[in-house]
């Protein structure tokens, strides 16, 4: 009991830190006195996205980028508020909470834009020419290499269920996943899981029964796995995991073979954006060959998941990939009653703070 309480305290601390950071972390790229300034609000970590922004600025000496890093729920709330009040805020909004972005478009908050590059996107990665999917990031299972023997490494959700089934499972209390109330992305992954397969109910039950931990942020979860605080983490955003796994050989990554959700971070240009032309140029840059290369280097386009090659990363078959398309049906995820019910279901397994 004490352990749970301590864990919860940790979670609260992380949560507060995350929220604090979300509102404050800004970074200015490019010359301070540049005549044109592009304001990007994004859920992506600044250091992950820095390379992409710098590449964009390399050929545009008259432009600076003010990069604000936000949590997805806060970013959604702020953008929605700006949209209603007509206040000029961001020029570009990029969020992993694609359901929130779809909602913003449905609420007529986005500006239309079309170019040869946007038209080249698959239909599932654009909606109304107002929101576009710019990255390809799988939702993965992360494990601690020293704590999980190779034979135990779960390849599918069924494997994970099997690991948690025994009464004395060594993984009880050692599994982490996103707190879906704190993380828009976590909510989206869980919601898509619930739509995708019946495994979700069993998984939720297992996680709840074994006292799994729900926390807020990718970085904390992966850090926990590396240190051995957790042995397994479920539904972690692959781009972060891959980035850390490259520097830290304690971390192993699995793309679930029953199905792997693939997230495309959504980009939209608010209709009241102050610097529309640079916003559009930034979008075209991200979709261009050079931009994609930068995104690939930032691991935001996972190897084998950029749609062109059949080699779908780590032996995952093409049919097991479930891209989260930009479709109005994502509105269901944000429906207030649906959300309440879903969170109530979730809280049944993960009693919150």
């Amino acid at each position: 009991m004490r352990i749970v309480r301590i864990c919860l305290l940790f979670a609260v601390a992380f949560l507060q830190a995350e929220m604090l950071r979300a509102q404050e972390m800004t970074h200015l790229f490019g010359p301070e006195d540049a005549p044109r300034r592009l304001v990007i609000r994004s859920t992506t970590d600044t250091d992950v996205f820095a390379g992409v922004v710098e590449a964009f600025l390399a050929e545009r000496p008259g432009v600076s980028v003010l990069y604000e890093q936000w949590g997805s729920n806060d970013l959604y709330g702020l953008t929605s508020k700006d949209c209603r009040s007509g206040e000029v805020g961001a020029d570009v909004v990029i969020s992993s909470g694609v359901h929130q972005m779809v909602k913003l478009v449905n609420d007529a908050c986005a500006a239309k834009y079309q170019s040869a590059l946007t038209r080249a996107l698959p239909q599932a990665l654009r909606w109304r020419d107002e929101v576009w999917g710019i990255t390809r990031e799988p939702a993965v299972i992360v494990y601690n290499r020293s704590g999980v023997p190779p034979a135990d490494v779960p390849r599918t959700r069924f494997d994970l269920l099997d690991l948690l089934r025994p009464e004395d499972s060594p993984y009880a209390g050692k599994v982490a996943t996103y707190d879906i109330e704190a993380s828009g992305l976590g909510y989206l992954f869980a919601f898509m899981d619930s739509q995708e397969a019946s495994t979700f109910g069993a998984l939720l039950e297992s996680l709840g029964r074994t006292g799994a931990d729900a926390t807020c942020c990718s970085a904390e979860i992966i850090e926990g796995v590396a240190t051995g605080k957790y042995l397994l983490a479920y539904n972690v955003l692959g781009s972060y995991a891959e980035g850390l796994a490259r520097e830290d050989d304690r971390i192993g990554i699995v793309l679930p073979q029953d199905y792997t959700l693939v997230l495309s971070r959504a980009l939209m240009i608010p209709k009241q954006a102050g610097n529309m032309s640079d916003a559009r140029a930034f979008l075209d840059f991200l979709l261009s060959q050079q931009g994609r290369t930068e995104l690939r280097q930032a691991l935001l386009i996972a190897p084998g998941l950029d749609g062109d090659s059949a080699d779908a990363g780590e032996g995952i078959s093409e049919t097991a990939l479930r891209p989260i398309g930009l479709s109005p049906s994502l509105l269901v995820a944000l429906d207030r009653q649906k959300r309440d019910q879903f969170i109530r279901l979730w809280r049944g397994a993960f009693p919150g703070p």
Partner: protein
Amino acid sequence: MSLTARVALAVGSLLLIGGVVVSLAAFAYGREAARETYDRLLVGAANAIAASITIVDGAPVVDLPMSAFELLALAPDDRIAYRVVGVNGETLTGYDDLALPDKRGRGDTSFFNASFFGEPARYAVVTRRFAERSLNGTVHVIVGQTLLARNALALDITRNVLFGLIISGTLLLLLAVLVVRSALKPLARIGEAFARRDPHDLTPMDTKVPREAAVMIQALNGFMARLDRQFSSMQNLISDTAHQLRTPVAALRAQADLAAEEADEDRRRAIVERIHRRSVSLGELLDQMLSRALVLHRSDSARREVVDLRDVALEVLESGDLQVLAPETDIQLDIGDLPVPVLADSPSLCEAAKNLLTNAVRYGRGPVRLGVSRDGETASLWVEDQGEGPPEAVQNSLGERFVRSAASDGKSAGLGLSIAKSVAEAFNGRLAFQKGQPSGSRVVLVFPLVEGVS
């Protein structure tokens, strides 16, 4: 303007007017079809949402089904508006500012139009009634969608119809031109055949042309046949005249020469007397030849009308020519009370009758009778005298132009009969020789009686 251009213009303007009408109809139909199609989507989604409402602890709970939104996402670029209104008018979920319309159609399903964040949209309202112990009332589900897909479908339907219309119209126009061209081809062929024809060739044209053009060809052929007959009768007249006149004129000249050289007064007077007789005879011959030419011409060109043969007989008798020719001869008229109508040309008949009468007076023996009679389906005009009638040889070779009996002695009985025969044949009749009643001989012109004319 050419026929082709006329037809093309007519068909073209027909297509244009039809095209405008059809386009308007197609657009109206397209809008209607799109409206119905997407209204069904709306109702389907609204029903799915309504069906997902359950009562939990006395409060309606909406478990928004993903399938409803996937249904609406069939219009891929349209924004979705929805709201579930509870029993007391409170919003259970969805967009709070979606208002229920004041006036709604009866029944559980109704539609209305309103804007959604500044964009026109179409809404469906579905009601679900609850009669539970804990909840009693009506829950409304409003589902709306913007109009992009509807408009696109309406436009698509219209465009498809227009596309078909343009293609079929063009084909129709081409076809019309082709049909007109091929229909008018016989005309060109006929024109070409005429152009190639020898100017003296008046033989009938080939009538193997379409029925419509055959009418024209037949008329042309009839015209040419008439032209041919007149042409040849003119030729005959000229050659006859030349032939007939040469001998008497030569004789006249010889007599005149004789007269010039004759010293004896008495004999010269006798010669002059002969010259005079010859000139009179020549004049008569000339008259007859001209009248024959006239008859031939008229029989082809004059209009046929109903003529009473009694009128013809009377006219011939009253013209008084015979009184001059033979004042001593007694001519009796024999006509009945009933009209004797035939289809012919009166002047031609008069000429023929006059010739017969003249022959009878001149070569036959009195008394001479001119009569008209009808017998069953035939009508007859006859001349009777107490002589022998024309010799057998003359009767047999009648109609050849230069026949003259020996008795005529340079006077032209043959031509008179020939004229009568031509006239008879021109009006579907014939010339016949019969025994006189009770004696003598009779020359008869027999024609078919015209029925139904009193």
